């Protein structure tokens, strides 16, 4: 028998009374907490909606979410960037949070939902449509209108930060796509860097290496990975062939167009003809295939160079880069997928947040930061250090000025994985190119209707 059952009725009653008081107190505390949270949210909303943040003359603390930075880049931020900014702006204190790319989007959206989002944060190339249409980003149009940095950015890249004419984000670093090739492999095969799509394929046929029927070095790698690498490579090819994912007004998908079909048939022919292999998949943080000598040519961004430096430095001297080939060999197109900086719509300190954002996108700070993470600064006025004085880096800068970008639409975040899945099916022979594109087109059409 438990001690409880031996207690007197009086003691029972006293305990029940105590329990009731405790329960009422707990309920009261809960209600108070809810009320307080609700007040905070209201206060935050009213502050941001009025646009009147705390005066810069009174001390404020803003937070910055830094995504995917290397330890050296974080040390640069903590040791130099933030102290320098705080010295120049004594009333603004900055705290930095960090996360990896894999979980960044989830963290940003859940933090925004719980009103705990960082004031300033880095965002992936195709997140803007979703975040802006869900009102998680502060409109920056009025700030950008008076911002000197805007003139240093390629118009196409700056436009990737807009949705329906409103500026919501500022490009932080570029991610341009083009054709990488290994000069030693090309020399050994007696082929020149391809300018046309026909030459790209004939070169790939001469460059592929097989052993026992299996490809050990791809003639051409199309950047298949666990994310949307294949979709980005296909988009580069599609734009190079004069096509587009959407109709002229960006209101409907155009994956069933003749040029889209031709582009995918061309791409899949590399796999069916044994010039490329779908077995070469970049998983997680693994390097690009060409950066470790498993491909002679590859469509990819500047990270190929930095990955080669990290994983196989002897390949670096053999790496070269050209704009992606076109059908005629002229008018190459470079697609840009810039990573951006934005400000949380619910920030209590929009002006201070903008001050910090404009400071870290200033040419000197941005150039140093991008050199530490191995990316191309979006600001063309950024002083070029040793990282950017190589011929390849200069090529990238030249291309950036002429680059094109995908349109910013709310469903862009969903489009990438959806199309990538269908392209994987086409590449692996699970679906014909026309069936894969029809499925992609139908999926995107229903997404656009839903949005």
């Amino acid at each position, binding site marked *: 028998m438990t001690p409880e*059952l031996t207690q007197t009725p009086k003691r029972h009653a006293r305990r029940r009374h105590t329990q009731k008081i405790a329960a009422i107190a707990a309920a009261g505390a809960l209600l108070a907490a809810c009320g307080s949270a609700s007040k905070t949210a209201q206060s935050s909303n009213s502050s941001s909606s009025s646009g009147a943040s705390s005066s810069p003359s009174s001390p404020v603390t803003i937070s910055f979410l830094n995504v995917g930075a290397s330890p050296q880049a974080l040390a640069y931020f903590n040791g130099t960037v933030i102290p320098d900014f705080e010295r120049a702006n004594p009333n603004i204190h900055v705290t930095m949070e960090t996360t990896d790319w894999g979980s960044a989007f989830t963290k940003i959206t859940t933090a925004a939902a719980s009103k705990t989002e960082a004031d300033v944060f880095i965002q992936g190339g195709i997140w803007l449509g979703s975040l802006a249409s*869900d009102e998680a980003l502060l409109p920056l149009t009025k700030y950008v209108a008076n911002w000197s940095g805007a003139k240093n950015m390629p118009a196409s890249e700056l436009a990737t930060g807009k949705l329906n004419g409103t500026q919501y984000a500022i490009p932080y670093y570029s991610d341009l796509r083009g054709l990488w090739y290994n000069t030693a492999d090309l020399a050994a095969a007696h082929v020149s860097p391809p300018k046309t799509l026909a030459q790209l394929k004939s070169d790939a046929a001469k460059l592929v290496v097989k052993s026992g029927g299996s490809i050990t070095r791809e003639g051409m790698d199309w950047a298949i990975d666990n994310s949307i690498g294949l979709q980005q490579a296909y988009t580069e090819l599609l734009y190079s062939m004069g096509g587009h994912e959407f109709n002229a007004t960006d209101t409907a998908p155009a994956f069933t167009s003749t040029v889209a079909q031709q582009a995918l048939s061309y791409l899949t022919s590399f796999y069916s003809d044994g010039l490329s292999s779908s077995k070469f998949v970049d998983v997680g943080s693994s390097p690009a295939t060409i950066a470790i000598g498993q491909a002679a040519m590859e469509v990819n961004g500047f990270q190929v160079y930095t990955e080669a430096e990290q994983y196989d430095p002897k390949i670096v001297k053999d790496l070269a880069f050209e704009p992606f080939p076109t059908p005629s060999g002229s008018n190459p197109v470079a697609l840009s997928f810039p990573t951006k900086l934005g400000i949380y719509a619910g920030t209590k300190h929009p002006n201070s947040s903008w001050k910090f954002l404009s400071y870290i996108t200033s040419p000197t700070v941005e150039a140093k930061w991008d050199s530490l993470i191995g990316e191309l600064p979006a600001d063309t006025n950024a002083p070029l250090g040793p990282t950017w004085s190589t011929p390849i880096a200069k090529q990238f800068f030249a291309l950036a000025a002429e680059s094109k970008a995908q349109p910013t639409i709310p469903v862009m975040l969903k489009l990438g994985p959806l199309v990538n*899945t269908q392209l994987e099916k086409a590449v692996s022979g699970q679906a014909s190119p026309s069936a894969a594109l029809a499925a992609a087109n139908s999926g995107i059409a229903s997404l656009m209707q839903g949005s």
Partner: protein
Amino acid sequence: MTSPLLSSGRPPAARAQDPAVPAPGRRRLGLDAGKRRAGLKFVAPALVLLIILDVAPILTELFYSFTKFSLLKPAHLVGFAEYEALFSDPVFWHSVLRTFYFAGVLVVVGIAVSLGVAVLLTQTIIGTTFHRIVIFLPQTVSYAAGALIWVWLFNPTSGPINTLISSLGGPSIGWLSSPGIAMPSLLIVSLWRDTGYYMLVFLAALANVPTELYEAAHLDGAGPIRTFREVVLPSIRPAMLFVLLTWTLGALQMFTQAYVMTNGGPGNATLSVVLDIYKEGFQDLSLGYASAESFVVFLFCLVLSLVYVRWFRTRID
């Protein structure tokens, strides 16, 4: 055949006279009001935790499944719209089929392997303890870490498995990139990770089979296979229920392997339902749709659990 182990061991007459054993038709808890209240107080903390951690999230999920909810904007009620979208979505049905395939193969092959290994390790062989430790060892590795190790092992060019196959003159296999092979590759990883744990469960169950039963079977002229079928299997039914239930439910919720190793690809070949829920909810921000999907999976797991338990109870009783 009813195992002697699984009965109470007392004759029916004795049970009928025992006041602790409820007579047929008698209330299961013949406690007075005071004792019932005391009992409730004892279970109250657990009950509160259960409500907060299990019941409340399920009800919340049920509510959101009737809404359009993007996480960043307030949810608004849309009735059964998300369920209609779900049931007409070919990707959802594809993920369901892939999950059934994964769970079915994993549980059947897994039970056969873990029980087989457990039976082998009950024999007098050299290094039994060593073998048990080695087979159990993968259980100590987190799924994510184990999956990353296997990504390297499965690498088509530099991975040890393909290197070995090539050295023997075999072809290079796209373990994670070929649509037909990717899911079996995930099954290999899951078997590697889980077999040791379930082997231990079976070992414990086998150790509880009375030696008298083996002796009786031997005296009756039963061979090893018949002894296993007629004596061992009925005696380990509770353990079998546990393994079947937990492994099936775990396999139906497969996520980490697919997320880390293939992200559902190639071409959705390894897309499990839970990975699809994650992608819908946290990548596409379709929380209402993801909630509907989660609730359907929850209902299925609930029904499956009830069927398993009822099926085994009839056999155990």
